[in-house]
């Protein structure tokens, strides 16, 4: 570093140089510039991961803020959320962002998951990118489930009750699992402690760790191209630098999505149902959040008895197998060299997607 004289004093440059000697900034920027993003007609899907990351940030920030006013007790939670909604300045806004954000986050994750599946971005060497992404979707759904209980209105109570009882129907470990999750035989303060500490400590750490792995792998391996683009002659394939070219567009997309998001958040602030009364009948029309609707609808469709098995047990094994297959089918197709398996993975994905969409829509009716 040259000592600045009055003549060549350039404050920004000096600060940057000083920093760069201590933190390898330029190396990092250069590294980010090495990654190239393919430019083609399916490029729009490349923005989904970035949007998901934006919503993860929104959830972390608003969740942290909510904790300043939220009271995690079985008796006091409802009143505290009511106060957040009605008394705390802009409490309604933060809560609305967190509640809407949870839904949009999961929606974007689903879109991201299906789009990478159909572009076959899970193929070698990106198997761990796929599996870590799948883990992130799972964690986000547990986030949604544990968070949904926290306001302790009627729907929160019954959604939790049924959700845990469903887990309790898993073969063999079910009853122990349900008891463990509830912290007893009924939902109460112990359950609340468990859900709260998962929601605000364990899940955020797990999510950050897994996201770190996911993002690092992507940065190291670069972005994959769908087969149709790989087949094109070299001259017809276009690329741009991730940093700064693609990143600039990323920021623009974030901005646009955020503005649209804030419109919904403020025009349709998230509501709060009546306080739970454990004696009361489950409210007519009770439903889980939309991202659990496909499982919910499937549970409804299974009859009470199938041969000599309980319908719910069969349903649980079925649902578990179908979702578990998302970790298996892409791995089978990881080389992409076996045409039969490649075809199968595509067809399987289409059937999965249509089935999931159909059950979700049916469940919402």
């Amino acid at each position, binding site marked *: 570093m040259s000592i600045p004289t009055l003549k060549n004093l350039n404050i920004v440059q000096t600060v940057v140089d000083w920093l760069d000697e201590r933190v390898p900034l330029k190396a990092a920027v250069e590294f980010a510039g090495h990654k190239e993003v393919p430019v083609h007609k399916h490029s729009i899907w490349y923005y989904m991961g970035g949007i998901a990351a934006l919503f993860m940030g929104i959830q972390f920030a608003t969740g942290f803020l909510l904790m300043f006013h939220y009271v995690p007790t079985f008796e006091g939670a409802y009143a505290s959320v009511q106060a957040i909604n009605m008394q705390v300045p802009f409490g309604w806004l933060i809560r609305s962002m967190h509640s809407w954000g949870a839904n949009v986050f999961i929606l974007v994750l689903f879109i991201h998951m299906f789009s990478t599946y159909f572009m076959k971005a899970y193929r070698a060497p990106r198997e761990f990118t796929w599996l870590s992404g799948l883990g992130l979707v799972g964690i986000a759904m547990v986030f949604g489930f544990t968070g949904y209980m926290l306001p302790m209105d009627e729907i929160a109570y*019954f959604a939790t009750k049924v959700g845990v009882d469903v887990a309790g*129907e898993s073969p063999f470990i079910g009853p122990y699992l349900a008891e*463990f999750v509830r*912290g007893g035989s009924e939902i109460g303060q112990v359950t609340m402690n468990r859900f709260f500490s998962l929601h605000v400590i364990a899940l955020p750490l797990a999510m950050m760790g897994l996201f770190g792995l996911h993002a690092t792998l992507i940065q190291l391996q670069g972005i994959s191209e769908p087969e149709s683009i790989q087949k094109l002659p070299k001259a017809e394939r276009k690329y741009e630098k991730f940093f700064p070219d693609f990143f600039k567009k990323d920021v623009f997309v974030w901005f646009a999505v955020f503005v649209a998001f804030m419109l919904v958040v403020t025009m349709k602030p998230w509501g709060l149902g009546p306080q739970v009364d*454990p*004696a009361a*009948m*489950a409210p007519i029309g*009770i439903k889980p959040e939309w991202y659990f609707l496909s499982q919910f609808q499937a549970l409804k469709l299974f009859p009470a008895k199938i041969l000599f098995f309980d319908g*719910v047990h069969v349903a649980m094994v079925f649902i578990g197998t179908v979702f578990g297959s998302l970790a298996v089918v892409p791995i089978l197709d990881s080389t992409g060299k076996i045409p039969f398996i490649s075809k199968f993975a595509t067809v399987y994905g289409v059937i999965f997607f249509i089935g999931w969409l159909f059950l979700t829509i049916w469940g919402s009716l």
Partner: protein
Amino acid sequence: MTTEQDSSKTNESQNNPQGDYNLDSAEVSFGRRAFFGGILALGGGLWALLVAGTPILSFLWPKKSEVVTVTEMTFEKNLKDFPVGESKNFMFGSIPALLIHDSNGKLSVFNAKCSHLGCTVGYQKDKDVIYCACHGGTYDPNTGKNIAGPPPAPLKPLVADVAADGTITIKIA
């Protein structure tokens, strides 16, 4: 340690014309070393899991909840104020219960926990059924028998006794 071994290995193979043999034996001893290393790592891992896992799991395991068992309680309303077609969800100790003055003029009372996945059921007067909103299970209001939807078993019955003055007493069956 490794470097020492490595250098001794090279020395030996340099000095010995039959270097192949020595290399082989070096590999064998390396294999044995890796084997014992593996056993040690596995054992250590299991030990750590046990030592860390036992207190953590025990800490988290729910303690036996003291179940508040009620065997009998007086219902909040007199029969005079509870005409045919009336129904009420209430707590019987720690369990939700449902009392119905059914179409036969009889009082039926049940543990209101749905036999499917444990939602709380309620009486639907217009259809004269007990209904579970969670997955649409229905039960007969007179007998508690499961008649439609996913519930695999009837509701568990309780007993309602009526005294001469109309006081209703709920008891376990």
